[in-house]
């Protein structure tokens, strides 16, 4: 696939309280951003298991985004600390299996940061494009 036609597919895990609300605000403010990321609302970024990230890559995602409340602002007190610690390990794991660690990204977007959410998606898409499709973990479907 050439760079022009290749559109990275992203699964975006958004916490209900901050990032999902932030992406709603991007909508309310009509801030345009690429359609590559499909959102899944989760209660907390801390509820995103590393298994979900691997599962997404296996099912053909080119990138995975996990976005939560700012550190210290977690609706569930400390869920996003857990997320940060746990998901840091995911990066190492990806490197270990030979996948660009930048295919996985975490961001902190509050309910007031619609513009930031749009920016995060835009940047992620821009960064994924030169990497080309992710094939390594993608299961060969029968």
């Amino acid at each position: 696939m050439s760079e022009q036609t290749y559109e990275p597919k992203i699964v975006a895990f958004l916490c209900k309280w901050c990032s999902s609300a932030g992406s709603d605000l991007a909508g309310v403010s009509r801030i345009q951003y690429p359609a590559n990321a499909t959102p899944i609302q989760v209660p907390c970024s801390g509820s995103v298991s590393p298994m979900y990230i691997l599962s997404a890559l296996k099912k053909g995602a080119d990138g995975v985004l996990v976005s939560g409340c700012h550190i210290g602002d977690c609706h569930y007190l400390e869920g996003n600390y857990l997320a940060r610690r746990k998901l840091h390990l995911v990066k190492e794991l990806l490197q270990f299996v030979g996948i660009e660690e930048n295919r996985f990204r975490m961001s902190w977007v509050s309910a007031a940061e619609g513009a930031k959410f749009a920016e995060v998606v835009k940047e992620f898409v821009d960064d994924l494009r030169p990497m080309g499709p992710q094939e390594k973990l993608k299961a060969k479907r029968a």
Partner: protein
Amino acid sequence: MSEKRTGVFVCHCGNNIAATVDVKKVAETMAQEGTVAFSKDYVYMCSDPGQSSVIEAIKEHRLDSVVVSCCSPNLHEGTFRENAERAGISGFTCEIANIREQCAWVHKDRTEATEKAIKISRSAIRRVAGNKKLDPIAVPVTRRAMVIGGGIAGIQAALDMANAGLDVVLVEKLATIGGHILQLSETFPTLDCSQCILSPKMVEVSRHPKIKLLTYSEVKEVSGSVGNFEVKILKKPTFVDAETCKLCDDCAQVCPQVVSNEHDLGLTARRAIHIPFAQAIPASYTLDEEACLGLNPIRCGKCKDVCEAGAINYDMRPETITENVGAIVVATGFDLYPQEKILEYGAGNVADVLDGLQFERLCSASGPTQGHVKRPSDRTEPKEVVFIQCVGSRDPAQHCAYCSKICCMYTAKHARLYKHHVPDGKAYVFYIDIRSGGKNYEEFVQRAMEEDETVYLRGRVSKLHRTKDGKVRVMGVDTLTGQNVEIDADMVVLALAMQPSQGTADAARTLKIGRDKDGFLAEAHPKLKPVESVTGGIYLAGCAQGPKDIPETVSQASAAASKVLALLSKPTLSHAPTIATVRNSHCTGCEMCVTACPYDAIHLENGKAVVNEVLCEGCGSCSATCLRAAISVRNTSPMQVHEMIEACLSL
């Protein structure tokens, strides 16, 4: 296995969604999904006919679950879950696919947006296929409330709730309730005296059988959640028994320690043992331990010797008090933006340059000059006074970006009060705009200009300094005439910005409620939930939430009180049943989840994890750590999430 029968309802939202997303195609594509038994699109799903059609379809097509592809779940999840209940199926088998905010409104390309809407809808369908019927969990409620902050906002909220029969704990940081209003002289737009407004309410608080007043106290720890909070409060010792104190002032007469008086903003001094002001509630002297020569060991002891009532007790110690309440109103108020930060106006070091509250004290009959406006430097009557508006406000580059909202009004009031005290004086006001929205507010400003002959100059003051002959030279521009203006004033009053009080920042941290970009407490929704915080059971009132005047503060306080009353009107609250649940067969008792849970909601019983239904908030931290996939949040099981991921990648 019984066959799943999901109904899909795709909303056009007028043209909001339909303009970018091919809604017909979404509905048709969803009809192909294995679990979908019915699918349609409609112009306004949330309208009355739209909602009725959901109910009818559930009944007619024996649907067991529903997906509505429409706007954000924050808007209509509740609506459609109610429809599901009305049609006789569990509300928790209804999920929203957000194809408006997260799709139609942020994309232009119709093909791309339609594809994304299909993926979002399919993901919701896959999720709902695994959803279980759930019933809300009834949690008993503690029918008491707490108010933090005893300014007019806190006082109003406490009285409203207490008068409706609720037990209220009012926690105030200082030795008396009252807040900033007690520092004011008269109040716009009626020029009635602030003490006359507030003192009767303060007395009512102190006598109210339903109000427990904790002054000199601060909240240190909060646990629990809506309906059942446990709050730990630290009450500092006052070393004076309020019941016994006769307010004779004998102690203060002999106290050798003199410090600046906060109530008069440093314009007067007080003793270490003092009463904040005559009408303080509780009516008692307080020994300020920091200012005292020393209590341990006793270095002075004069006050105790002289107190005939025997009210002074040096052995008082800080006390930790635990209160259980169902709801909390935060009313921790404002501070003025520090004058030290305004370098161009001398950073607080130029004599006779005062802030607005200091000027209030000078006008007040109970103030340092008994209501005669005099310069602090030489106690002469100022004949020319310059008032500068917007100091620190509307200045995103250096100070606060926001408008403090009340300064136009209180500056007009200051000019008028000054002219009433010094009829032959001259008052100048530098302003950027006059914002006088409010009942009788514009008329009030007009009176300042016309009746009281205040000179309004539109423009900024660039700097000011003290002259050799003891005046303050103010250099500004009048942008209407384009002329530079220089005034040698006897006194300058700065209308400093309002900022959230230090106590507001402290309370927000302890309660874990959000603050906005300026540090004010964040409301749950700027229009529809202006007195709710994002955290259930915690409400906001007064200047802690944003700059406002007394009428607006009182309205918000009463609104917060009525929200609490509604919340606590029933003996139980329903707690979302979407909480963690354990598959015993898979649990090995490793306790990973126990450590991960931020609410201490999990413990082991017979070697298996057990979740406390009331404490669990459903955050899912446990499920993300469990290596055996033994614990997960109901209706967000790992199986469901994997299915959703697949749907998101299906095109």
